[in-house]
């Protein structure tokens, strides 16, 4: 393929062109980062309210409870509880993780790591952010509608999400917001793919790209292919709600309908399972790179890792049915989906061997990005292995829709992605904002987060194994869940600890961005990928002269190099 040289854009001068309507991928990346962090806060607060209710049902939520829920004296009412977990899921998946990992680091890293001056379509890139803002406003607006926000779970299964189950306008706004966000992400994805194909610096083959780019690129492919599937699903849902079509209405509830609510589940999970990988692939890529950078040796089997990611991407499109075992699909489909699901563990096992192979005989520097990356390996190990119970039909008959599922997907999607996101933030901080974050507090942040996070998500799996089902407001109702109350309380306190640990991060981050005097050097981590060949923070044109790539991204610890233990990608392999 080919590379072309982009023009150097004139430096933006006004506030609007610099910070709001900027074409610069780095600024758009930062915009997405702030957007994501804002929603992460909202979603996290919702999580704490959910956890509080599960441990202390009927007791007022501390501090802000009486302000938010005056009519119950501060306790979360059951209908609000349903809205909370619906919005928590939606916000975390679509408005926090997606913007941070794909929006922020995708935008920021792709051109820099490829040696390009900007994305292939800067205007499209800018629009993608502004469309995401509109979507965010729609979603937050739904919280203030008369009957409240969507309350059918983030999966929004009909017929609960049709007018039968949720008459309010909130659910319509939810669907609309998701559709608009899908448009935004698809725009981003088209841009990412085009950029990766056409803008790799001269000399950079696909296997010379950092694995981060592999992860982000595969994510973009999945986004471009499967977001429209969800788009079609929610579009039909909107039609059902607004225009009176009967796609998902059936049974006694539908007056004239002959629709099929299960069809939505099929459509949702055709999208939904790849979505899991959309979220985790960038984190995998980032972690694979960082492990190598901080172990000071080349990534072990980098090509195999890239190919394993690709095969997982392909497999992820074929296994969605394991989310629907309890809807009683035909036995043949059930068996097929189970078997296909199991094959995912082969590429996953390759990841783990390669990750461990990377740190094997390395010379590991335990800086904060490395700690978070090692954390990802740990939590993704737990998350991946617990998935086996759910991919198996018979154990899924018991565990489906219990907290075990919640714990499992939080381990894979929330824990690994969150830790991956933190690793990325700590790592690219100097290139983004020109300063390093405080290492000491970063490490404190890591350890407390790690403790809290495992407490929360392991606790969830334990109560799930105990039989406690999802999305219930009050576990005291059932006898079989009553003995799980101590674990629920433990989980809640872990969540509170984890929540408070993020204050450390926020203070550290805000301090580094706005107040820190001490500037970072151009290459504080001593790694050789292209973004570290330019000044920190990256100038608006990125590269004055387009670099020519002569070696791979993980050239560390080469004994032939004298004077330093790494090589820039622009240097001839020693």
């Amino acid at each position, binding site marked *: *393929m*080919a*590379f*072309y*040289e982009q023009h150097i854009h004139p430096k933006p001068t006004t506030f609007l062109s610099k910070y709001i309507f900027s074409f610069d991928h780095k600024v758009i990346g930062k915009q997405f980062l702030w957007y994501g962090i804002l929603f992460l806060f909202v979603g996290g607060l919702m999580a704490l309210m959910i956890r509080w209710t599960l441990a202390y049902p009927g007791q007022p939520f501390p501090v802000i409870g009486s302000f938010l829920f005056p009519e119950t004296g501060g306790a979360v009412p059951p209908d609000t509880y349903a809205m909370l977990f619906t919005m928590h899921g939606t916000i975390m998946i679509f408005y926090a993780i997606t913007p941070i990992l794909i929006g922020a680091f995708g935008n920021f890293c792709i051109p820099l790591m490829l040696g390009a001056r900007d994305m*292939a*379509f800067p205007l499209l890139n800018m629009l993608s952010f502004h469309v995401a803002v509109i979507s965010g406003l729609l979603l937050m607006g739904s919280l203030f509608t008369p009957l409240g926000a969507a309350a059918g779970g983030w999966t929004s299964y009909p017929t609960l999400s049709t007018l039968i189950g949720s008459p309010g306008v909130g659910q319509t706004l939810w669907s609309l917001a998701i559709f608009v966000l899908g448009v935004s992400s*698809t725009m981003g*994805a*088209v*841009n990412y*793919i*085009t950029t990766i*194909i*056409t803008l*790799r610096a*001269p*000399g*950079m*083959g696909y296997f010379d790209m950092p694995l981060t780019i592999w992860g982000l690129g595969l994510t973009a492919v999945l986004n*471009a*292919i*499967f*977001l*429209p*599937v969800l*788009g*079609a*699903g929610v*579009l*039909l849902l909107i*039609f*059902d709600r607004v*225009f*009176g*079509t*009967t*796609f998902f209405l059936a049974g006694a509830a539908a007056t*004239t*309908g*002959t*629709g*099929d609510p299960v*069809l939505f589940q*099929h*459509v949702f999970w*055709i999208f939904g399972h790849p979505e899991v990988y959309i979220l985790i692939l960038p984190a995998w890529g980032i972690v694979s790179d960082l492990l190598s950078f901080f172990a000071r040796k080349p990534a072990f089997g980098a090509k195999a890792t890239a190919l394993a990611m690709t095969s997982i991407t392909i497999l992820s499109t074929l296994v969605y049915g394991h989310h629907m075992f309890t809807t009683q699909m035909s036995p043949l489909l059930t068996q097929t989906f189970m078997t296909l699901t199991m094959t995912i563990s082969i590429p996953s096992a390759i990841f783990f061997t390669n990750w461990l192979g990377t740190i094997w005989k390395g010379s590991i520097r335990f800086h904060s990005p490395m700690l978070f990356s090692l954390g990802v390996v740990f939590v993704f190990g737990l998350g991946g292995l617990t998935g086996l119970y759910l991919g198996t039909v018979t154990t899924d008959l018991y565990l489906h829709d219990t907290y075990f599922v919640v714990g499992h997907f939080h381990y894979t999607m929330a824990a690994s992605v969150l830790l991956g996101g933190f690793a990325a933030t700590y790592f690219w901080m100097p290139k983004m904002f020109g300063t390093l974050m405080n290492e000491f507090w970063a490490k404190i942040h890591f350890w407390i987060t790690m403790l809290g996070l495992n407490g929360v998500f392991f606790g969830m799996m334990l109560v799930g194994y105990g039989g406690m089902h999802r999305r219930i407001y009050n576990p005291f109702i059932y006898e079989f869940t009553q003995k799980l109350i101590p674990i629920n309380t433990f989980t809640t306190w872990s969540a509170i600890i984890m929540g408070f640990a993020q204050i450390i991060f926020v203070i550290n981050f805000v301090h580094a961005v706005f107040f820190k005097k001490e500037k970072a050097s151009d290459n504080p981590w001593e790694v050789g990928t292209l973004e570290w060949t330019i000044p920190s923070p990256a100038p608006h044109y990125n590269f004055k002269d387009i670099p020519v790539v002569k070696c791979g991204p993980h050239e560390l610890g080469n004994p032939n190099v004298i004077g330093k233990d790494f090589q820039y990608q622009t240097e001839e392999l020693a």
Partner: protein
Amino acid sequence: MTTMVVNNHLEREKMVSSIAMVMTLVSFSMLFATLMLGYVAYRFTAEVWPPLGMQRASLGLPTISTVIILMSSFSYFLSENSFLQGKLKAFRAYYFFTLMLGLAFMVSQLFLWKNLKLIGIYVDSTVFGSIIYAFTWIHAAHVVGGILALLFLIPSIRGTRDGGKSQIWLQNVGQFWHFLGIIWVIIYFGIFVF
């Protein structure tokens, strides 16, 4: 390494936009593919189709729509060809013809919806009605988008855009326009004929 550096401005724009266009069309295809998948699922699990009490929509109007949209695709093809051969007059004529056919398609859709109501197929009359309306609505919305895309060719018509650039614009808008034609033909055969 197999990389070549392209510094020809037009070459590169052509390459970039065609890659992006392919990805965009893949996205749009997935949207329609999902809809068709849903239709197939309804169709094959239904015992009788159309459901009891429903009658099939008459083929007249959809056939007219099909003819119109195929003609518009052909006209677009001729328009692009005449542009490439430098026959600007023919280019303009075919372009306006395409635009008119696009509008005519929308009018035929309006008649179709009116006609459906006349024979008692409403949005909420079973999933049969829902499918016909929803699919044609979604397609029509894309056709409106397509017509707007055609309007972006006006600078090429007026000659204020340079030739190479016009060529790229023509090619990309054309791909989208032909794509909409193909989708309509699939809808026509899938929903109205079978």
